[in-house]
């Protein structure tokens, strides 16, 4: 019997590291979110558990894990419990082609961008299954909104990403980063400012974050698609949302902000720095803007973002050809 192939060991280690990274970031981001929310609203945020409330996320996690798992009456049990799993599992492959640094990429996939976008689409499916499986009208309404929103915003997102791919002529995140320079004015956000803004807007909408958190709008829908989930059922949705935020910001970093490159020594620290700046901006959005109305949300996408992204793509293609 020959030895275990090296690639298999490589992938297993990478997935273990990704799982650790996602879990740890979930904890950190919950703390950051609550702290930012607190300071935006002129209160200290979590303060009691640990120094400056640093251990609060651990307490939250322990609470979530300890809670009883309820399945509502008349719900489709299989679909109901499949949904949180479908929501969380695709997160793992999405981190595989993420270029933290030239040496710190879990798996070199030369269509890495397509991989991330493909698995990102599964989240909507999970929200739908959750809303349908709960046998709850709020859940169903939340799921309906999730579909309309997710399907609409995916199109300008893909088109804005495509504009960058046109410029580099590659679908590999590593190559796209390598094609950018060391200084901020050599990054793609200077050449593709419209695509950057479009991508980030659509990214916020795709991760269902405020001001686009219509599927779980608590003032109208209780909690939308995850109304009926208790304990870790809700925990998995929550963790998946934070992981998707990291993915959206990570892809933005690689595509538009030069990835691991930066003035001075290039490396994973630059990637992480830009990633966390974008994440804080996303959290800042949530606590600054009020929630949009649903017709405004769809009008914004179909009447502004979509034509703008098509125009941007056409102009990009034209300029490349000239």
């Amino acid at each position, binding site marked *: 019997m020959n030895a275990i*192939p090296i690639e*298999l060991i490589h992938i297993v280690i990478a997935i273990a590291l990704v799982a650790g990274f996602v879990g740890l970031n979930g904890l950190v981001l919950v703390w950051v979110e609550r702290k930012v929310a607190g300071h935006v609203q002129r209160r200290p945020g979590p303060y009691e558990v640990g120094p400056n409330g640093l251990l609060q996320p651990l307490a939250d996690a322990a609470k979530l894990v300890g809670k009883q798992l309820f399945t509502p009456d008349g719900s*489709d049990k*299989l*679909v109901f419990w*499949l949904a949180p799993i479908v929501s969380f599992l695709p997160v793992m492959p999405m981190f595989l082609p993420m270029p933290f640094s030239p040496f710190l990429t879990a798996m070199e*996939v*030369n*269509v890495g961008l*397509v*991989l991330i*976008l*493909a*698995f*990102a*689409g*599964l989240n*909507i*499916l999970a929200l*739908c*299954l959750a*809303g*349908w*499986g709960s046998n709850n009208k709020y859940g*169903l309404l939340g*799921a*309906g909104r999730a*579909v*309309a929103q*997710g*399907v609409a915003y*995916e199109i300008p997102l893909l088109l804005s990403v495509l504009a960058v791919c046109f410029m580099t002529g590659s*679908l590999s995140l590593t190559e796209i980063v390598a094609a950018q320079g060391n200084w901020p004015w050599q990054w793609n956000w200077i050449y593709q400012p419209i695509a950057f803004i479009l991508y980030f807007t659509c990214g916020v909408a795709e991760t269902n974050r405020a001001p686009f958190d219509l599927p779980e709008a608590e003032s109208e829908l209780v909690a939308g698609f995850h109304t009926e989930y208790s304990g870790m059922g809700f925990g998995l949705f929550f963790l998946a949302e934070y992981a998707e935020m990291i993915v959206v910001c990570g892809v933005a970093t690689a595509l538009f902000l030069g990835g691991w490159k930066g003035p001075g020594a290039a490396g994973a620290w630059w990637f992480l720095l830009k990633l966390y700046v974008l994440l804080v901006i996303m959290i800042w959005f949530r606590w600054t803007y009020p929630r949009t109305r649903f017709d405004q949300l769809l009008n914004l996408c179909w009447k502004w973002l979509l034509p703008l992204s098509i125009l941007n793509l056409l102009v990009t293609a034209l300029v490349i050809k000239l």
Partner: protein
Amino acid sequence: MAILAKVAFFFYTLIILAGAWWAVTAQSLVRALVGLIATLFAVAGMYLLLAAPLVAFMQLLIYVGAVSVLILLAIMLARAPAGGEEQDPRQPRQYVNALLVLCAPAFALSWVIIKHPPVSRLTPSELPAEALGKALMGPYSLAFELISVALLVAMAGAVLLAFEKRGKK
């Protein structure tokens, strides 16, 4: 790696068949859709085994990420009642019809493959996305365009159906 590939092949085949069986026999539409999604996923796995990651991820992006979601939306909009006709016991004639529907494409496809076997190789090699695009725009452009005609027909048909329903009310 060859053994691993064979294991993966049988694993995917199993999921494809099980998902299809589940989709046909499920008692609720959403459960049937779950079976369909499992099948689509395993087909993407098959593409990966053929060293065609772009096609595999497009399969996920389009079929799992978009088409299944739209099917789900249609189910939710139609609000299919729990005790629909899919829960009635099936007639033996339905089984015969199903078998015919299963066999017709199977015979046609296997006849074509036996008549014109494609060139096979031991280890598949990955084709760059550029070559794929050039092939679609060059020698296969007619097929590529015909697909868009099919989509147009489907869309026109959907509009027509919607209008007829509205007229009856």
